[in-house]
């Protein structure tokens, strides 16, 4: 996926609800329009990260399989 990333959050090894807790904290500190890449290996993240984006009004740009983990791309719009 060809996405320009402004910040990377390493949530590998974290289990629910920590990837979402860190996601919220990280996005708070970012500027509107910036893109965050969340790296996570918790299977719950597939559903959780898009759901979080929908509820908070941020944009979910997609996910990418990186082998041992997934990359999730979130654009701060809310």
């Amino acid at each position, binding site marked *: 996926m060809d996405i320009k990333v402004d910040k990377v959050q390493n949530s590998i090894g974290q289990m629910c609800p920590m990837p979402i807790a860190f996601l*919220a904290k990280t996005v708070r500190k970012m500027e509107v329009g910036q893109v965050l890449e969340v790296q996570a290996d918790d299977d719950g993240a597939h559903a959780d990260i898009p759901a979080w984006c929908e*509820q908070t009004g941020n944009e979910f740009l997609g996910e990418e399989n990186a082998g041992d983990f997934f990359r999730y791309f979130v654009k701060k719009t809310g």
Partner: protein
Amino acid sequence: MAENKATIVVFSGDMDKIFAAFSIATGAAAAGMDTTLFFTFWGIKAIQKGNLTGKGLMGKMLGLMNRGGLGRLGPSRFNFGGLGRWMFKKMMTEKGVTPLEELRQTLIDLDVHFLACKMSMDVMEIKREDLIDEVEDVVGVAKFVKEASDSAIQLFI
């Protein structure tokens, strides 16, 4: 009118149920909801510092048998006098589950409000100074009803 708020009553002092309450509160707060945890009865253990409590003989006995602090919480099933707690903690650590202490700190970082029930504290002879400093207030049921009445999520755990 339901606002972007979540109010959760934490009645249980069981480790597993506190886990559920803390996880849901984390999710709600992370989603930008104004989140309040109302600790009552056994749930107060989750916000106690862990020192011995009680004034009279019965209060002191209760304080000994029902000692507070996150590290002392046992699971609602299969505790076996503490063996179950040890086993659950070991299994959760191996799987990388966040410990309750860290989860509680996350709630504090996400500005979740901690309220304690005055009546339960009086009955169990638990003082304000037996609770962690982050507890915002010691309140009655009217405060809970007010918070819950305009919350989109209300839970009793």
